[in-house]
């Protein structure tokens, strides 16, 4: 009924979004363009130039020289458990903080949120000591300790990321109407059922958003992976990218190609989870 009135506004909105998107894409397109060119061409003619040859050689070289398949598998083994446990832990803690009034709530919230304030480097010296002094059986860690073990890496990701997720989710859960859980209490539902069957399904948008962000952070982590793992072969995909860089000389065209390859899985995850937090799935509709 208001189609005629809306149209100019929609048009200018699309114009704005298209222009902004193009600005947003310039660095990526430029990197992609460079990644398609051999080093010899960009060295002779500069990055801002056309000519020479174009092709996917940097991509195939990066894939094989960095042994990416191996490191992708490492990354999956680290990222997936870390992500699942982080969201599980965080949603439980957030549920307690947001849905129950008890006296330690503020303290808990500060404990989780403020744990995010420090740069990772600030805690590494004591953390390294803790990690080298916790022994593990060999079936858990072939180094015999938490240091240089995949488990240790997963644990620090969970510890470091849970705080942020608790903070986001507890704020989000406060927007869920209390009547829902109160009805459940009258039903006699246990708290765990209130959490698992009533609250979590309503948190799908925020869980999806956090899963996307957390996957991105953990997947792209390089700091913990290098500070707490000393065996090169156990490191994640970010280390494979670093492996393409030399003591001095680095073929940046090759690194750009490798980096673009490495970015693909995160985009796939984003794409897969996206429908959970875009228009269509609303609190209102799931309530009904």
């Amino acid at each position, binding site marked *: 009924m208001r189609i005629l009135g809306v149209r100019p506004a929609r048009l200018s909105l699309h114009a704005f979004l298209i222009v902004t998107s193009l600005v947003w894409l310039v660095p990526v397109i430029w990197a992609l363009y460079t990644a398609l060119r051999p*080093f*010899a061409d960009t*060295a*002779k003619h500069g990055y801002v130039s056309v000519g020479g040859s174009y092709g996917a050689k940097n991509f195939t070289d990066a894939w094989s*020289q960095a042994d990416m398949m191996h490191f992708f598998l490492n990354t999956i083994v680290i990222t997936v458990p870390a992500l699942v446990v982080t969201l599980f832990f965080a949603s439980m803690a957030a549920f307690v903080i947001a849905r129950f009034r008890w006296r330690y709530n503020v303290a808990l919230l500060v404990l989780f949120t403020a744990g995010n304030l420090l740069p990772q480097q600030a805690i590494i010296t004591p953390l*390294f000591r803790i990690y*080298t*002094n916790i*022994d593990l059986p*060999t079936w858990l*860690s*072939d*180094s*015999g*300790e938490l*240091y*240089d073990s995949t488990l240790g890496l997963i644990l620090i990701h969970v510890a470091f990321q849970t705080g942020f997720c608790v903070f986001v989710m507890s704020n989000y859960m406060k927007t869920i109407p209390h009547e829902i859980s109160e009805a459940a209490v009258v039903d006699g539902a246990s708290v765990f059922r209130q959490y698992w069957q009533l609250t979590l399904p309503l948190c799908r948008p925020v869980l999806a958003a956090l899963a996307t962000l957390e996957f991105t952070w953990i997947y792209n982590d390089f700091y913990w992976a*290098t*500070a707490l793992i*000393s*065996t*090169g*072969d156990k*490191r994640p995909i970010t*280390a494979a990218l*670093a*492996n*393409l*860089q*030399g*003591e*001095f*000389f*680095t*073929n*940046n065209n090759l690194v750009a190609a490798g980096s673009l390859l490495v970015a693909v899985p995160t985009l796939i995850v984003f794409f897969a989870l996206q429908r959970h937090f875009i228009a269509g799935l609303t609190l209102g509709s799931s309530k009904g």
Partner: protein
Amino acid sequence: MSSAQNSPYARGVSRRSLFRGAVGLAGVSALGIPALSACSSSKSSGGTGGDAGAATGTVTIGSNGSDPVPKKAFADLFAAANTATGLTTTVNTVDHNTFQQNISTYLQGTPDDIFTWFAGYRMQFFAQQGLLHDVNDVWDKIGGNFSDAIKAQSKGLDGKYYFVPDYYYPWGLFYSKSLWSSKGYTAPTTWDDFITLCKKMKSDGLSPVALGEQDGWPAMGTFDYINMRTNGYQFHIELMQGKQAWTDAKVKATFDHWTELLGYTSPGANGRKWQDAVTMVMNGQAGMCVHGLDQAGPVFQQAGKSDDLDFFAFPAIDPANGQDAVEAPIDGWMMSKKPKNHDGAVKLLQWLGTAPAQNTYLASSPNDVAAASNPDTSKYNTLQKKSIEFVSSAKQISQFMDRDANPTFVSTVMIPALQKFIGDPTSIGSALSDIESQKKTIYAG
């Protein structure tokens, strides 16, 4: 990596003995045989190098050569090592930057038996901290393979050897032969000729000296050379070791010379990557650059212009010092404090310290030169041959500011100071007293 060497007990020994001392060691030994065998191998560590000939088993190697060229060179090297020594080698490769940043925790965690590192203060520091095993018994065998200057770079402050040199590369002024012959430039040997050449290049529309200082370290090479030419090697090294004052008028004289040169240095250095600076030289936009063969070489090589690269020695400033000192960083091998296979590691290092082994590595990495004297140079290119002459004629060898001085001092004080100086040369007057006072807090312990 092989499972036997990765036994948690064996690793536990190396860690515990570092942090918990004898008590922890005894506790672990009680766990069983693997610990005992690890102990016995470390007991023999002070012992005779002669035993190493019979050593067998696996030696673990920590390598920082992760990118394609050195990775292949190392792979070739250790394939040859397995054949030559009868040992089995397993290589743990970590990228260069990470390896450097985590070296301290690496050595205190679960280090490999031997690993790649640098000569200079950076080796001596870890020796002094007790994180290295001396390699005197290696040197009993390989001593004849190296010049005295290189031997001197392989010892800790306690006079013991901790380092087995592998290769080096010289720093100098690199240029494009085709550009120079087309313009008729010749290599200057004195500062005045150098400045005259810069003036000529400028009038020819070139940036005389290209510099890319965004990463903070490349300009150190220029400082090192001007300082050694102005004040001599001894003063320079003592300055690096914190024994001379940065407020000394001699240091100011170095910066004064450099200020003159900055007038001929490409502007915008602090926002340029060093590879772009070398590229300017390669493409004839700049006349020359102060760099190492390990940096200039690969850029020319990857662009298919290896034959166009040449270099000359940094010109003399004070005739008393001439062109005596050469900056030639040496990369090599060290042994961790408690190697799991000490005898094997000694045997492997004795082989790595020979010219044939070093040339095996260099076959895939032509921008370095074997550290051992009298290598077979039949496969060397012109620049490698020139590098040998260049370094063997040197009266003294320096490493590099970030290898000769305390690394924290260099990264937290000198990099900011040099970048500030390059951005604004007049700032150095007041900066030197800041440098000196920060040096005192950092070196004091």
